[in-house]
């Protein structure tokens, strides 16, 4: 009992650090560990993963809000699309064959992975690429953040709001339908489509994921798929890990974060594509 609990705490700390840095929920790390490593039923692994997403989100947001890396307006505005997507997704369960979605989302992730490779070749300060956008200005989405690595305040403009909204709707749809946190899509919507710098994209994705996950978490909570003996040590580890991770992220060079992010993106994308074609890993 004690041994399992301590392992869970360690896994939690690692997942929290990684999740906070990359803007991913951490479910990507925890679900395979629980199912493959501990032989836990996938049903309970998903229940734990939802708690993991919320813990990463709340833990890292505490640090990001104080250090003003995340963009609260972008988060709230895009939440409209993710929450509606999540509701539609949960209503479509059983109607729509998830097979096609897996293929579609797998392709989108792989495409974005290659897009990010192209960005890697740009200079370290690849910000301010967005043009003046009437809609973004009207919604006051443009922002600034202090980059602790570059040691300067960076002003940035947000562009292509409709494109970002559509990807966010897809991200919500995927989390409602497939039971995933879909943090990867959230980062892509902001970084690739809306041309936000990677660090505010990642921090804002973290904030948004908790809100999206909270809606489905209550369902899992009441139907008993959340096992307290597993979820609690995981969550405690993650809260600590996420606070540490959100501090580390700010001093890392953006380039390094991308280098870690790209293979994970390609891995998830390839995995979804295979699942869409009926190959179970």
């Amino acid at each position, binding site marked *: 009992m004690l041994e399992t609990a301590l392992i869970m705490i360690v896994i939690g700390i690692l997942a929290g650090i990684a999740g906070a840095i990359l803007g991913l929920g951490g479910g990507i790390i925890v679900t395979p560990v629980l199912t493959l490593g501990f032989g836990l039923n996938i049903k309970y692994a998903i229940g734990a993963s939802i708690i993991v997403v*919320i813990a990463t989100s709340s833990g890292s947001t505490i640090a990001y809000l104080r250090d003003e890396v995340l963009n*609260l307006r972008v988060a709230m505005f895009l939440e409209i699309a993710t929450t509606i997507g999540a509701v539609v997704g949960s*209503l479509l369960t059983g109607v729509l064959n998830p097979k096609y979605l897996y293929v579609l989302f797998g392709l989108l992730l792989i495409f974005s992975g290659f897009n990010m490779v192209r960005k890697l070749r740009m200079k370290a300060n690849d910000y301010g690429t967005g043009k003046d956008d009437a809609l973004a200005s009207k919604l006051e989405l443009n922002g600034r953040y202090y980059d602790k690595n570059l040691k300067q305040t960076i002003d940035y403009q947000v562009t292509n709001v409709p494109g970002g909204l559509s990807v966010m709707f897809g991200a919500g749809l995927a989390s409602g339908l497939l039971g995933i946190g879909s943090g990867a899509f959230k980062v892509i919507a902001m970084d690739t489509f809306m041309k936000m710098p990677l660090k505010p994209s990642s921090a804002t994705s973290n904030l948004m994921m908790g809100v999206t996950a909270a809606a489905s978490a209550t369902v899992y*909570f009441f139907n*008993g798929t959340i096992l307290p003996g597993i979820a609690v040590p995981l969550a*405690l580890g993650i809260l600590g890990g996420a606070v540490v991770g959100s501090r580390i992220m700010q001093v890392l060079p953006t380039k390094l974060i991308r280098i870690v992010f790209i293979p994970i993106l390609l891995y998830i994308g390839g995995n979804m594509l295979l699942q869409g074609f009926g190959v179970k890993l």
Partner: protein
Amino acid sequence: MNKQPDEHLNQEMNSIELIIGKILRIGVIISATIMLIGWLLLVITGKTGYAGNFHPTSFQQIIAGTVQLKPDAIMMLGIFCLILTPVLRVIVSIYSFFKERDMLYVYITSFVLLVLIISFLIGLSQA
């Protein structure tokens, strides 16, 4: 001319983020403390407080179990508080935007809360 509204906007965001940060921190500390107490009780006593693989899921069971200091019930209470922290964040954001008289974002954030409530109700009806 251009600098004035920009500065104002920046200050406004700072105070909103500070309030949300503070309340969020309190919420996280409360839920983490409850989870930690339940988990320590579990590790020390080695018992979940329930027979077999059963763990409480309804409010009634959780509250009754918490009063009797059953580890699983206390842990579930802590998890429930953790689930509420993002919702709390949305509610506080509405209040903060309202205080700053940013009505556009009061509407946007209220709409998000409304969708959250709807999805919550759909979830309950399917559970």
